[in-house]
């Protein structure tokens, strides 16, 4: 019996120890938090890792350092993830009510469930206070849901077709103004064995931009796509079907790099940047790669130009763009340090404006006086275009609700892959949108 006891006792101890360890976990955490309570910690998550967005990353760190120097009682705890991982993590964190105090969000349809689920704090007081009149018209509206602002916009983007001037010169090509001219360029490049257009349609939002532009041009003055998403008109509108047809014409003419449906946007971009493809449609968040980013060879940066998306059969205007505000800052509703978080978010937006222009080379959503600044020519041109813009259509997948956006992106891949007819493409959209 002694032997038996010798085994029972340690076994019980072991179980007890496990229990205690499990229970004490929380206590330990709290003790740590309270010990440093004199300096409040604001958790901040952003999506610009050092590797892929070096300049963004550096500027964020500068702003944080300045903020901490000015506010000694607030510490910023940083977490950085790349785009897709960031989206996943934010979802998980919000499900378990553990959102960072300050983080980044996309506008409109993307942030709607977060706002309706009461996860993002209303920021009307911040916007009406120190940030009043700072934002470019239209940007704040995209972050306004139920008549209240829930995000502070940081970026404003329009998309244009960037092209390689060296390749264009070599074959005597000029910037196209109509779709027909673009088709001729594609034909010439294909004859000479040059990939015409880089496209990474595994990230189907890139293909969606092509579709959106064609729809915008063909529909002319009316913003057919936005109207269809808002249920003002049917998605089976002739312009939206015709745009789908034009996509398949482009695909049939081998306009895009081979295997685009299996390539990520990053892969397509690297083909354009290694001069393996002549053109690339992307938004202005990539401007630094074509202007100021020192990691990209100067020779390549000098050879990049851009042109506005061409008109189709005389319809549409080149001053209408696909684009809109990119990410904005949210403050978590259930944050323990909400006031400090708001202070930081507001400070960040104010600092970001000018630094985004001078140090990062992207277009901020806040007004910046650029006259006094020494800026790359391409950047100045884009700003001028933006000022002359007659219309900016917000990305379709951001406008739509998450589940409709998923259908849209799948359908874009199917359309480019030639799996659906333009009619069925429109019909599936119509069915999905009308169900909501």
């Amino acid at each position: 019996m002694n032997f038996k006891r010798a085994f029972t006792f340690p076994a019980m101890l072991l179980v007890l120890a496990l229990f205690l360890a499990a229970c004490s976990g929380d206590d330990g955490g709290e003790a740590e938090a309270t010990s440093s309570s004199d300096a409040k910690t604001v958790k901040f998550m952003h999506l610009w890792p050092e590797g892929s967005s070096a300049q963004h990353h550096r500027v964020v760190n500068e702003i944080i350092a300045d903020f901490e120097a000015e506010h000694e009682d607030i510490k910023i705890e940083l977490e950085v993830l790349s785009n897709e991982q960031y989206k996943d993590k934010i979802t998980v964190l919000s499900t378990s009510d553990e959102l960072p105090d300050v983080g980044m969000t996309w506008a409109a349809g993307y942030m709607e469930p977060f706002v309706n689920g009461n996860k993002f704090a209303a920021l009307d007081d911040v916007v009406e206070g120190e940030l009043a009149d700072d934002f470019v018209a239209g940007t704040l509206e995209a972050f306004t849901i139920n008549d209240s602002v829930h995000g502070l916009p940081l970026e404003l983007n329009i998309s244009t077709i960037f092209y390689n001037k060296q390749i264009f010169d070599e074959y005597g090509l000029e910037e196209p103004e109509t779709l027909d001219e673009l088709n001729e360029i594609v034909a010439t490049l294909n004859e000479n064995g040059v990939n015409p257009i880089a496209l990474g349609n595994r990230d189907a939002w890139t293909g969606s931009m092509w579709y959106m532009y064609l729809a915008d041009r063909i529909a002319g003055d009316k913003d057919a796509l936005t109207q269809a998403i808002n249920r003002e008109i049917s998605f089976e509108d002739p312009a939206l079907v015709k745009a789908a047809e034009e996509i398949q014409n482009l695909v049939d003419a081998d306009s895009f790099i081979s295997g685009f449906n299996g390539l990520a946007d990053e892969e397509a971009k690297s083909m354009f940047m290694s001069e393996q493809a002549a053109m690339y449609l992307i938004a202005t968040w990539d401007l630094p790669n074509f202007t100021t980013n020192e990691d990209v060879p100067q020779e390549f940066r000098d050879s990049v130009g851009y042109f506005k998306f061409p008109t189709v059969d005389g319809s549409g205007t080149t001053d209408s763009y696909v684009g809109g505000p990119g990410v904005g800052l949210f403050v978590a509703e259930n944050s323990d340090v909400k006031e400090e978080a708001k202070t930081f978010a507001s400070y960040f937006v104010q600092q970001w404006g000018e630094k985004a222009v001078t140090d990062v080379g992207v277009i901020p959503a806040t007004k910046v006086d650029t006259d006094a600044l020494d800026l790359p020519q391409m950047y100045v041109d884009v700003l001028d275009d933006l000022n002359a813009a007659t219309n900016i259509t917000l990305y379709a997948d951001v406008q739509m609700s998450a589940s409709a956006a998923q259908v849209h992106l799948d359908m874009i891949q199917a359309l480019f892959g030639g799996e659906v007819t333009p009619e069925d493409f429109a019909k599936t959209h119509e069915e999905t949108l009308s169900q909501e």
Partner: protein
Amino acid sequence: MNIMNKVMSNKWIIFLYTLPAILLIAVLILIPLFLSGYFGLMKWDGIGAMEFIGLDNYIVALQDAKFWQSAKHSFLLAIFSGLSLIGYLAVALILASKLKGTNLLRKIYLIPMLLSSVAIAQLWIKVYNPSNGMLNSILMSLGVDNPPAWLADNDLVLFAIFVPIIWQYAGFYILIYYAALKNIPESLIEAAKIDGASPLQIAMKIKIPLVMNVFKVTIVLSFVGSLKYFDLIYVMTGGGPNGASEVMASYMYKLAFSSYDFGYGSAIGFLLLIITLIVTIVVRRATANNEEIQY
């Protein structure tokens, strides 16, 4: 031994010793499992409030063509992984024989197992790249004019991903078979040799029957593993283009995390569990041993 028997005959002690493991499994697996079945009864975007809608999600799932397409892809993967086991057994038979160089080969086969799924995915994305990839470069140098864009072609993408998935687990199964084969007493094989059995006869009549039990276990393992497979699909294609490489787990993920339909995603997850359970039972029945082979 005496002490051991005494300890093991006390039910309380058995209970105590297994308790930590049971607790861990309950907290990490069983409870979430029932929770996902429960969430499947809800209309829930994962962020806001839940709304009870009964079996609606499950009924929709059973009529969802995309779900059944992804289920078909999962079953195809299960069948291909099952078939690949035969190849692994053949390789293991060679490795377990006393040929020169098998030691080195055994290590080479193990390498894919040491790589993380994401690394393997990145590697094969590069291999399959339509214009700069290794595979198409080789094909073009062999005179193929228009090599396929492997991950973009709806008819090919699924099988293109099967290759690295099956390659990834080669080392694991070969190692299991190798260990089982090394367990066969040398005397049996010596005796067979003296009786004049050819190497093929030794393999077919002695070695394979003796590792059959292990083989049956690996069939179950590979089936279950294939049905709930996720990693490479997620990284390499995300289930695309337009669902051509979607499997059940990636479809579940897409619904919950991209479409913000956690209720429906949970229902799909629960169905995935039920399907996997049924298949496991069927496969175990089908491979149940009527007689234990011993020599």
